[in-house]
């Protein structure tokens, strides 16, 4: 009872949960994915992103909730009945089969005639640029080539959904960039729907149409890469998206999405991301690349330089505030340890989150 790709409009996760004993790996995850979308599941290790993927693939039984493909509930189906394509983290190529047989495996299982298998395997091999390698065994291929086989194997069955579980994590930096572009190209060529699991923000930002940020088994935010990059909903998402400086203060004034926060003597202005009331505690989140030294006396955070590292065009500086908060920033000039600096950022680049962290 393989699912017909044509009938598919959307994939819906409805309050999907998974417990391992008393540990909640995934709690009430609800999400709707439209046909043709490229979705990245992003989060630190242990956040539940791989669990979500395995539940969709059917490799792990859910302990609560359901998965729907249009009007059909698919979570009781066995993985082989779902008809999805999947790229595994360590590729999981069949070591005893040639590249051709690996790619053609799914078609063979579906009882596709021999001649058509050959034709489609050749097509898929060409799409991932593996011509000439197809009689080799996986063990004779390089990491990048194995990756291409894994992708070809997943797409050759023309699945309604392609699942990718950290597919680039075993490649070196250069190949990773190359394959990232390949994955996006193949997705566009096929018009496939892809769910892509990663812990790498950069990868998610550059590949996905929408990103789902997970943390401790709960969805924290769903949005476009631009949304997530500049407007994270929560402090922890902001931190994960690169707002590495986290400074506690007290709200001096707040109005129309803007707020001024008192940190010690200084007053710092920024954009609010949630309900912020004057007088309450709040957190500032600032990217290191937006934080720069300014002349003493200007509004900013005062801190003592701990060290600076040369990064080609600029220096990355590390400083500590009087209350012990660590800050990272960018500077044009080298600073000596022990020096006192005032650090400031554009108000548009400072995010303000009310309430406790």
């Amino acid at each position, binding site marked *: 009872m*393989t699912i017909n790709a044509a009938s598919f409009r959307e994939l819906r996760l409805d309050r999907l949960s998974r417990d391992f004993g008393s540990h909640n790996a995934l709690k009430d995850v609800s999400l709707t994915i439209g046909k043709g979308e490229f979705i990245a599941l992003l989060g630190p290790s242990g956040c539940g992103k791989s669990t979500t993927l395995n539940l969709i*693939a*059917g*490799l792990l039984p859910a302990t609560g909730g359901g998965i729907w493909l249009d009007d059909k509930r698919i979570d009781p189906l*066995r*993985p*082989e009945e*779902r*008809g*999805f*394509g*999947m790229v*595994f*983290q*360590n590729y*999981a*190529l*069949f*070591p*005893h089969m040639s590249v051709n047989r690996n790619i053609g*495996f*799914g078609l*063979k*299982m*579906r009882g596709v005639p021999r001649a058509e298998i050959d034709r489609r395997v050749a097509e898929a091999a060409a799409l991932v640029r593996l011509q000439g390698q197809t009689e080799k065994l996986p063990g004779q291929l390089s990491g990048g080539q194995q990756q291409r086989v894994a992708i070809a*194997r997943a797409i050759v*069955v023309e699945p309604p959904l392609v*699942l990718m579980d950290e597919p680039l994590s075993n490649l070196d930096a250069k190949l990773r960039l190359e394959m990232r572009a390949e994955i996006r190209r193949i997705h566009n060529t096929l018009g496939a729907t892809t769910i892509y699991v990663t812990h790498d923000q950069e990868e998610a930002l550059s590949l996905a149409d929408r990103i789902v940020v997970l943390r401790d088994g709960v969805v924290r935010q769903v949005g476009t890469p631009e949304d997530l990059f500049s407007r994270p909903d929560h402090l922890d998402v902001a931190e994960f998206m690169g707002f590495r400086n986290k400074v506690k203060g007290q709200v001096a004034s707040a109005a129309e999405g803007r707020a001024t926060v008192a940190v010690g003597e200084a007053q710092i202005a920024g954009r609010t991301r949630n309900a912020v009331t004057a007088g309450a505690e709040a957190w500032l989140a600032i990217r290191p690349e937006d934080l720069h030294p300014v002349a003493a006396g200007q509004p900013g955070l005062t801190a003592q330089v701990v060290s600076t590292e040369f990064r080609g065009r600029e220096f990355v500086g590390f400083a500590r505030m009087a209350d012990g908060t660590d800050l990272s920033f960018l500077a044009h000039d080298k600073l000596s340890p022990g020096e006192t600096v005032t650090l400031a950022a554009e108000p548009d680049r400072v995010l303000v989150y009310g309430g406790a962290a």
Partner: protein
Amino acid sequence: MVKDTRISTKLWAAANWTLIGFFIVNLLAMIATVVTSSFATRWLGTWLPAGWTTRWYSAAWSEFQLHDVLLVTFQIVFLVVVLSGLIGVPAAYALARRDFPGKKLVMLLFLLPLLVPPITFGIPLATVLYQTGFAGQMSGVVLANLVPTVPFVILVMIPFIEQIDTKIEQAARVFGANTFKLFVHVLLPLLMPGILAALLLVLVRTLAMFELTFLTAGPTSQTLVVALYYAVFASGVRAVQSIDAMAVIYMVTTLIWLVIALRFVNPTQIVARAKK
């Protein structure tokens, strides 16, 4: 491994090598005695026999009906090998891949027949097999021999299966293989080397299994090793050389399979199975 050049260490090493050398020389001499005797015309009170002959082999062949005995032996061994594979490999697969309540108890159940010596559980087992009418014929001998070989296959196969990445099976499932296709196209080819090794060891063990076969066999279901026991037990009736010829036939039969098995496994594996 730290190298040491002290005199005391060297003496100690020499003493150890002497011991192991002494053991091996005696072992090989014992085997050589049997082989020499089986080719001897007359061998009494001298280092070497008076003359050489092969007639004891034809004598043994007809006296001990070795044709029938070997036929029975191979039928029994074949059945034990096939059945222990069929029962043992799926069980090993389940145990390697799943954690379920009571798994420890099940593992203990599979460990016990390998730890308890055959003669100890063989007597109650033979009693039950006699009362149910299996003993005395080939089916009883096969059943009795399966008691240690099924757990043996399971315990040899579990680590072998565990080292195969579960992701490969998951991939097969995702790409549409049901349990049967998964088994035929992916698991069986990957497990073949392990199954082959386990079954070869079962073969060697069954050829050499004296106690269980002895306790459950009737006159027409004896294996070679049991026939050899009866021949030695009744020595004096037949010429010594004739019994020795039979012993050589037994040794060759067993050692050929041992040599084949050792191409696939390490000798220590043959005893180390019981290690937890």
